[in-house]
C-alpha cells in the first residue's frame, strides 16, 4: 500500500464529513426552532472538526507544504469522494433529518470498526468521533420517530424524504478497488460487512416511527468515484469561493 492509497481512502471518509457539514451549515439561523437550530449547528461543528483531523493527517502524508485548506477547498469536483447521500440538498426539515439518520447509522458503524484500524491516527480520530456520532444518531433517530409518528403531515413529509433518499443508501457499502487494497492491510474497513447491521437498525427505527421501509430495485452510485449529482458543483462554488477568488492568501 502506498501513501496515495491511504490518502484516497481517507478522502472517502473525510469528504462525507465535510460535505454533510457544509450542508448543515447552510441551515444555521434558519431552523424550525432555536433548539433544533443549535443541534444542527452542533452536528456541523462535530463533522467539520472531524474533517479537519482527517485532512491534517492527509496533509502530513502528502507533504509538499500542503495544508488542510488546500485539501478542503482546492480540489476539483471529481476529486471529492463523498457518497451521493451526504450532498443531497436541504429540501425541507424531513430531508435534513432523513439524510442525517441514513448517514449517522452508517457513520457510527464505520467508526466503531475504524477505531480498530492498524493505522493509529485513523483509529484515534475514529475513537474521538464515536462519541459525537452516537449523539448524532440518537438525535436523528429521535426526530425520525417524532416526524414519523407525529402528525399526518410530518409522517407524509419524512416518508417522502426516506423514499427519495433510499436509493443512495446502497452506495455506502460499495468497496472501490482502493478500499480493498487499504482494507487488506488492516487499515481500511470492509464496509460490505456493515450492510446487514445497517439495514437492521434503520428498519427498526423506521418501524417504530410507523414509517414504511422502501423496497426498490435500483440504487444510485458514483460519489466514491467522484461522479456527483448536479447540485454538487453549486455546493463547491460556495465552499471554494474565497480560496478560488483570492488564491494563496492567509485568512
Amino acid at each position, binding site marked *: 500500500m502506498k501513501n496515495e492509497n491511504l490518502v484516497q481512502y481517507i478522502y472517502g471518509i473525510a469528504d462525507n464529513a465535510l460535505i454533510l457539514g457544509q450542508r448543515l451549515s447552510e441551515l444555521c439561523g*434558519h431552523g424550525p426552532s432555536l433548539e433544533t437550530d443549535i443541534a444542527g449547528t452542533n452536528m456541523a*461543528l462535530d463533522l467539520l472538526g472531524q474533517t479537519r483531523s482527517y485532512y491534517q493527517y492527509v496533509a502530513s502524508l502528502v507533504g509538499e507544504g500542503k495544508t488542510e485548506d488546500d485539501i478542503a477547498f482546492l480540489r476539483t469536483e471529481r476529486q471529492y469522494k463523498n457518497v451521493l447521500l451526504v450532498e443531497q440538498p436541504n429540501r425541507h*426539515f424531513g430531508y435534513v433529518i432523513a439524510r442525517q439518520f441514513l448517514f449517522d447509522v452508517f457513520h457510527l458503524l464505520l467508526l466503531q470498526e475504524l477505531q480498530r484500524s492498524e493505522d493509529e491516527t485513523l483509529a484515534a480520530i475514529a475513537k474521538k468521533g464515536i462519541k459525537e456520532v452516537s449523539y448524532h444518531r440518537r438525535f436523528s433517530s429521535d426526530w425520525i420517530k417524532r416526524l414519523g409518528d407525529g402528525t399526518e403531515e*410530518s409522517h407524509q413529509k419524512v416518508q417522502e424524504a426516506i423514499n427519495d433518499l433510499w436509493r443512495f443508501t446502497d452506495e455506502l457499502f460499495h468497496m472501490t478497488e482502493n478500499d480493498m487494497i487499504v482494507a487488506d492491510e488492516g487499515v481500511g474497513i470492509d464496509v460490505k460487512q456493515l450492510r446487514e447491521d445497517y439495514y437492521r437498525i434503520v428498519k427498526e427505527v423506521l418501524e417504530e416511527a410507523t414509517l414504511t421501509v422502501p423496497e426498490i430495485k435500483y440504487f444510485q452510485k458514483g460519489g466514491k468515484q467522484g461522479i456527483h449529482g448536479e447540485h454538487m458543483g453549486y455546493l463547491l462554488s*460556495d465552499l471554494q469561493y474565497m480560496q478560488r477568488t483570492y488564491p494563496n492568501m492567509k485568512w
Partner: protein
Amino acid sequence: MSEKEIKNLEEIFEQKIARDEKIEPKDWMPEKYRKTHIRQISQHAHSEIVGMLPEGNWITRAPSLRRKVALLAKVQDEAGHGLYLYSACETLGISRDELYNQLHTGKAKYSSIFNYPTITWADIGAIGWLVDGAAIINQVPLCSTSYGPYARAMIRVCKEESFHQRQGFEIMMTLANGTPEQKEMAQDALNRWWWPSLMMLGPTDAESVHTAQSMKWKLKRKTNDELRQQFIDQTVPQADLIGLTVPDPDLKWNEETGHYDFGEIDWEEFWQVVKGHGPCNKERMNARVNAWEKGEWVRDAAMAYAKKQEDKKLREAI
C-alpha cells in the same frame, strides 16, 4: 389591593433596587417595570436571533476550515444567547410564541445594525470587532442590572461576546497584515460598519426617551452618549494598531477632555433603518418569518409525538 398597599409594595421594591438587591420573577413589581423589561429583554433576544443572519451569510463561504468552524460556533453562541434571553423574558409572564409574534409583526424591534448587508468576508471581522465591541459596552453594565434572570443571563452573554470581539479583531488584523487586496477589503468593511456601529449605542441623550427611568432601575448605568464616547475611545487606537483608518475626517484626540472628538452622525440614516427602511430590513424579517412558518409542521409534529408518548405512558400505568 388598596392604594396604600400598592404604595407600600412600591416602596419596598424601590428600596430593594437602591440596595442593589435583585428582583426575582415571583417578587412583586410595578407593571411598568415588567413591561419595560419585557420590551428590553425581548429586543435583546430578537437582536441575537436576527443577528445570526448577516453572519450566517458567510458560513458556507468562510475562507478556511478554521474560520468556518469559528464562525459556526459564534453564530451558535448567538442562538444560545437568544435562548436564555427568551427564557429570562418568559419569567415575566409572556410566552415565547407571543414574543416571536411581536418580532414577526414588527411590533418588537431588534438592533438596527443587523439590517446592513455582509458583502465581503471582512464584514465578518468588522461585525465581531465593532458590532460586538459596541454590544459589550452596552451590555457589561447589565450584568448588575436589577432584574435577576436578566443580570444572570448577561454575565454569560458578556463572557462569550468578549471572545467574539477578540475573534473579530483577529480577523481584521489578519486582513490588515495581508495582501493589498485583503487590506483594502478590511478598510472597506471598516468604512461601511463604523457609523452604523456608533448608531448602535442609541440616539443622543436629548432624543432618548427611556433613559431616565432605565437609569433608576439599573437597566442603564451610563447614557447613550457616554457609552458612544467610551466605544470610540476604545476602538480608535485598535484601528491605529492594525493600520486601518477610521472614516471620520473630524476625528481627533482632544488633550483637554481626554477623549476623541468625532464628526456628526447621520441620524436621518439611523431613523430610516429603525423605521424599517434599511438595506436589509425586509430580507431579515422574511428570513425569520420564513423559518418560523416553514418550521410549523415540525414543531406540531414534536408536540403531537410528545402527547402520544405521554398518553401511552398513562395507558401503561393504568
